[in-house]
């Protein structure tokens, strides 16, 4: 009895957060649906062109289920999403779910690859920047990361292409050969992943630096140092774990921004991922596909946010019991 009550108390803030995320997702679905469906003009007319007879337009409208009330269409759409059925594209007549799954097989590895690069750059640079704070190398790292943050992913991508592809022919400029040849597939992901990862690494390094500097200035670290430990030792024994907590937030937020950044990068490098599918759908006025992808990305962003929030509480025992 007592154990269940304790468990319930521990789970309450978590459940409350899940509740807010469900509300946010519902709101997001209403928003996306409204923006994409309240406009006058019928998708059937767009598909059939201006020459189509009114009868043909009416027929196709009924076939697509667009003659139902907006509320009915909304309920059908969300119901489908909840059952994992994303519908069929008005334009390509392909299953949207299959298309998205195919696209994710490119975007997923790209985002992970970029995250690894971002961490590999951001963590050591931020650490060195903090330990060497006030010295030349520290200021240099600080300055470089400030500039790196100001570089748009597009610019990073184009400059990498100019340097590594046009001049030295190291990597393919664009396209994706598919996973049947994993080595070639990875090779074509290298430049896009670096375009994303370099910029994210610069941002990350600033947070790492700030977080570690804060630990270096704390009383307990000063105590540790006065007891004879070197900076590195003191940080390893006491500081790192405290510095890591705010970093969980940052890495989570970076993951969300990498997913969005992938939309841009895929268009620079013509990678057939989620971003290219999204842009193609916008250009073809394939609104149902846009609706599905928008909802998917919004869900990913909100869920990452939730996971970050919850893990923050799990990692920091001081926050236990607070909501």
């Amino acid at each position, binding site marked *: 009895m007592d154990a269940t009550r304790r468990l319930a108390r521990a789970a309450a803030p978590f459940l409350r957060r899940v509740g807010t995320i469900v509300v946010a997702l519902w709101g997001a679905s209403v928003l996306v649906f409204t923006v994409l469906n309240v406009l006058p003009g019928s998708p059937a007319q767009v598909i059939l062109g201006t020459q189509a007879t009114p009868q043909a337009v009416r027929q196709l409208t009924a076939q697509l289920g667009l003659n139902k009330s907006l509320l009915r269409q909304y309920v059908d759409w969300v119901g489908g999403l909840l059952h994992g059925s994303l519908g069929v594209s008005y334009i390509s007549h392909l299953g949207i779910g299959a298309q998205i799954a195919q696209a994710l097989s490119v975007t997923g590895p790209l985002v992970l690859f970029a995250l690894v690069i971002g961490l590999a750059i951001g963590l050591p640079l931020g650490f060195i920047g903090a330990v060497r704070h006030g010295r030349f190398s520290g200021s240099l790292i600080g300055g470089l990361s400030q500039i790196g943050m100001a570089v748009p992913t597009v610019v990073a991508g*184009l400059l990498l292409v100019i340097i590594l592809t046009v001049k030295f022919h190291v990597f393919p400029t664009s396209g994706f050969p598919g996973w049947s040849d994993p080595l070639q597939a990875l090779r074509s992901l290298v430049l896009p992943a670096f375009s994303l990862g370099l910029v994210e690494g610069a941002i990350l390094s600033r947070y790492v630096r700030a977080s570690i500097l804060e630990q270096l200035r704390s009383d307990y670290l000063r105590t540790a140092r006065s007891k004879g430990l070197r900076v590195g030792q003191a940080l390893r024994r006491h500081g790192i774990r405290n510095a890591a907590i705010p970093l969980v937030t940052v890495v989570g937020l970076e993951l969300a921004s990498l997913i969005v950044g992938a939309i841009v990068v895929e268009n620079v490098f013509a990678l057939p991922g989620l971003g290219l599918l999204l842009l193609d759908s916008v250009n073809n*006025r394939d609104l149902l596909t846009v609706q599905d992808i928008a909802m998917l990305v919004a869900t990913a962003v909100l869920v990452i946010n939730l996971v970050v929030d919850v893990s923050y509480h799990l990692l920091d025992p001081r926050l236990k019991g607070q909501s």
Partner: protein
Amino acid sequence: MTEIGSAPLTGDTMVGGDDVIEDARASLWRRWLRNPSALIGGIIVVLVVASAVISLVWTPYNPLAVDPSHALSGPSLRHLLGTDEYGRDVFSRLMASSQVALFVGFLSVLIATVVGIPAGLLAAERRGATGQVVLRLADILYGFPALLAAVVLAAAFGASKTTVVLAIGISYIPVFVRVTRSNALVVLNSEYVLAARAYGRRPLAIMRRHVIPNILTTIIAQMSLLFSLAVLAETALDFLGLGTAAPAASWGTMLQSSQNYLGNDPLLTVWPSVAIVLCVLGFSLLGDGISELRDVRSSR
């Protein structure tokens, strides 16, 4: 320094007269000059703004004037930064593009502040149901980063500069709600606000006399940072063809058309890249500098 450092300079608790304020202003100016972020950021921002203002009345060439006989000519005395594939002067187009960047940055930050700050203040003052509703609405918008919002709006209404401004502005609303709310809560929980409440001041008057003056610097720093992010987002959207339409010049569209000449004329990519990085760097440094100036401890 007098006691200004610790006491809020506003409202009921103000000490001293005009002399003290004069002193504080002079010292703020001096600290500005001694703060590298604020100084460098300020200079870059002034340069970008100047280039945009000058380009309204003068550019070396008409940024839209086509001259096929001088297409893709490199930097020269006639064309400082060379010409693009249609023979248009790159320097003139860079200058004209700064107008677009500032226009989009200014309007989107305006939208975000006009909605976000009052909403954040409301959420701080009314911590019950009203505050919860405001926060949950902000949560919904949080799911739509600028780029995603822009794509959805472009799919519905067609791509334009307006959809870009709206998308960036809307996606930054939750940021302002959160920053305003958390900073306002600190002020609202302070003892001098308690004293003001006990004295019978109404919530609106407390907001005006205590909360807003105290959170203003933080908000301005945040505005400068978001301005730099707005320029980044605008560049990406123009590059994707979701914003400024050709032949109008913008840094993003310049990058897009430079893509075909990466091998022959890489400088066409380099110039707009430099302009974007400088502009973004300027506003983000300025934002950092303003937050450092606010924090009196770090300036010592």
